[in-house]
Every structure is written in structure tokens, then in C-alpha cells.
């Protein structure tokens, strides 16, 4: 009897732990990576990538999780086709050759105020570098517009700073800025 009880307790531990980890799929219609870069020192140009996919997990019990995001490099959009074509060329992203930009987290720490720090690896044009995302606000809950009230969504805003030269994107330096500000609006639906 005692053995059975111990076995039941031991078996339930991973289940409890497993239940605390929730997996989500990125909602591509509400997830957009944006970037800001100095345009010849005159102004700060902004653009975004229109196609993103991926998944994330949230472990509420242990205040951690994981993020895997894949960005379609060909979907870069600055509102001007000629410039977007140039950004897709080998001068910048070489999108035909490297169609995916990826971010894979290695460590996630969710704070008590729902902010978080995500450490991970950003890969652009085959070059991987560690990049830390600063998540300002995380919010999870039932989607208010879902008629069945079953769609559970988690969202957050995140920012990061990178130097494009670190990824081998050297064209136009230093006139076109090296420092890039990245910001992500992310929403994911619980599986």
C-alpha cells in the first residue's frame, strides 16, 4: 500500500510539472518584428517583417519558458518596393539565399511584474549571435472576441539592440547605421 502511494506521488510529480508548461503557437497576424536604423544620420527609418512563425512555451510555476521564432526575410517591408528589393539583395539580407531569420531562446526568466528577460541566439544570413530580448509586459488570458471563450492567448512586447555588422551586413557602413533597434509585438495561441 505504501509502495503504491509512493509510486502514485512520484508519477504525479512530472504530470504536475508538465501541466504547468503550456505550449503556444505564434499568431502570424499579430506578430511582427520591427526594426529601426539610422538613415544617413538624417532620420531613423523603420521597417518590419510581415511573415513570422514559431512557438513558445510558458512555465508559470517555474517562471520560465522558451521562444522559437522564424522570420521570413523576403517579407521585409519599409513601405517602398524599390528599397525593399534592395534590402532583400546580397547587399543586406540576401533573402533568396538566406530566406529565414531565426531566434531561439536559451534561457527565459519571467519576473513578478510580468516583465521578462529572454536570452537566446539570433541567426541572420547564417551568422548566429547571442541576443537578449527585454520583454516589457506579458499578458495572458481568454481572447475577448472569441465567441466560444476558449481561445487562450499570451502576448508580449519585446525589444533588443544589435549591430548589423556582427551578422556580416556591412553595406553602406557607417553612413547607414550599424546599430539597429529591434522590437517585437508577439501574440501566441495556446495549443
Amino acid at each position, binding site marked *: 500500500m505504501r509502495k503504491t502511494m509512493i509510486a502514485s506521488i512520484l508519477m504525479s510529480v512530472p504530470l504536475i510539472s508538465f501541466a504547468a508548461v503550456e505550449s503556444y503557437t505564434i499568431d502570424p497576424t499579430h506578430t511582427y518584428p520591427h526594426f529601426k536604423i539610422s538613415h544617413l544620420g538624417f532620420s531613423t527609418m523603420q521597417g518590419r517583417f510581415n511573415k513570422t512563425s514559431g512557438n513558445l512555451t510558458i512555465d508559470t510555476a517555474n517562471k520560465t519558458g522558451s521562444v522559437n521564432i522564424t522570420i521570413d526575410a523576403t517579407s521585409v517591408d519599409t513601405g*517602398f*518596393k*524599390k*528599397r525593399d*528589393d*534592395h534590402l*532583400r*539583395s*546580397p*547587399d543586406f539580407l*540576401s533573402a*533568396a*539565399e*538566406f530566406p529565414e531569420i531565426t531566434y531561439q531562446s536559451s534561457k527565459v526568466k519571467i519576473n513578478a511584474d510580468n516583465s521578462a528577460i529572454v536570452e537566446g541566439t539570433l541567426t541572420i*544570413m*547564417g*551568422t548566429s549571435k547571442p541576443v537578449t530580448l527585454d520583454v516589457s509586459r506579458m499578458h495572458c488570458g481568454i481572447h475577448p472576441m472569441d465567441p466560444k471563450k476558449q481561445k487562450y492567448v499570451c502576448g508580449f512586447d519585446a525589444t533588443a539592440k544589435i549591430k548589423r555588422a556582427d551578422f*556580416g551586413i*556591412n*553595406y553602406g557602413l557607417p*553612413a547607414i547605421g550599424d546599430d539597429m533597434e529591434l522590437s517585437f509585438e508577439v501574440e501566441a495561441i495556446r495549443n
Partner: protein
Amino acid sequence: MQCMMNDLLQNPLFQSALAPLMVALVTGILLRPLGDKWAGLGFALGYAVSVYFTAGFQLFPLTSTRKILLIALGAVIVGALLDRLRYPQRFILWALVVCAAIAAEWVIWPVLKRAEGMELLLMSLVAVYAAWLVGWFDGLRNKQLAATSAAVSLGVGTGISAVLGASALLGQLGGAIGAAAGAMIVLQLFMSRIEVGRSFVLSAALLASLIGIAAVIYAGLPWYTLIPLAFIPVTARLPVKNDWNRFIQALVLVGYTTVPAAIAVLITWQVTQTAEPSLY
């Protein structure tokens, strides 16, 4: 003073025209006493300086541009060896043509491996361009002025087309071929017994063809721009009278080869000109 120097070093015209021209010229002069065909290596050294300024010598990750530069380095070495070895010429020609086609497929492999059906077939056909140019340029290796004139026009034509229609980096790397090859023309005009050899014709043809292919596959240059460029080494074989002064011969050959280059540039200009403002 330092600011002026930085401005100069960052100027695309310096990086892709003046620097390769001067370095190819000086190293060509310095290498000439070693033998008739050593001057041809001046082209490779002049081009290497341009690569240093534009793309850098970093090898990894192995992007298509770095593959092209790696192939060109291999072509210089293989060309220099072939200049000194005695193999049946027909065998060498066919071996180079096949290798050029394989090199082209390797450069476009990241796109090729995702293509299917007709798209795969059409993309594979770009290898014909590299094979064609390498074959024709190999035939020019003993026609010194014709080979260098063709390389100047091919480099400049490819470079300007790439800048207009595709990518500034590929444009600069194309233009540098023209500048470094231009130095070889100057050497041929002012120094006796200069032979550019296979190290020159093989590397110039491979570089220009692979840059053109990369511009089409990776940067949206219209594929038909390559058609007039392919005729540049053909026009370099048009007759030039032997009793003409070498300056006149060079001028006529550059004139012949400039025509298809200009047609390629014109086609790209027509296709890429839009009512939209400059992206800069």
C-alpha cells in the same frame, strides 16, 4: 586629414576602380621580371585589394559572394599551374568548361535545392553562361589585347548592370574586374612581352560570369541581360589588323567589346527605370 582618408577609402570609385587599377599596375610591373606570364597575377592582386575594401576576406559563413571569391582564388592558382604544365589543350578546355558549370551550380545551390520542375531546369541553365564565358575566354588566352579588352568590357558591363538592377556589392565586385583588367591593357601597351595567361582569363571569366549569375538569381537582375554580355568574348575575336599600332588595336578591341556591354547596360537601364524616386 584622417577624415579625408576615411572618405577616400569608403568611396566606391576608389574601392572598385582606382585601388584595383593602381595595385594591378604596380604589382604587374614588379612581377614582370619573373617571367612573361607572371604579370597576369597583377590582376589577381589588384582585384584582391578591391575585395578587401568591399566584401572583406572573411570566409564564413560561406555566402554566394564568398563562394565566388573562393572560386576565383582557385581559378588563379589552377590557371597559373596550367600555364606551366603541358596537357592536351582540348582536354583542358573541356575540363575548365565543366568545372565552370559546376562552380555556377554551387554558387546558386541554396536556391537550386529549393526549386522544383521547370524552375529547377531553368535555374540550372545559368551554368551555361559560366561555361560559355570560360570556354571563349580560354580561347583568347594567347590573344593578349583581345583577352584584356574583353575582360574590361565584361567587368564594367556586369558591374554597371548589377548596380542598376540588383546589388551595389555585386556591382562593385564586377567593376573591379574591369579596373584590374584595365591595368593589364596599360601594361601591354607600355611593356614588352606581357602575357596574361590562364591565371588571368580563367579568373576574369569565372568572376564576371558568377557575379552576373548571382545578380540574376539573388538580386533580381533580368536574366536576358546576360545574353549581350555573353557576346563580349565573341566580339573580341573580330579582326584587328596586325600592322596597326598597338594603341589603335587596343582602342578598336575595346570598341568592339564595349558594344555588347553597352547593350546589356541599356537593357538593364530600361527595365529598372521606374517613376519611383531613388531609394537613397
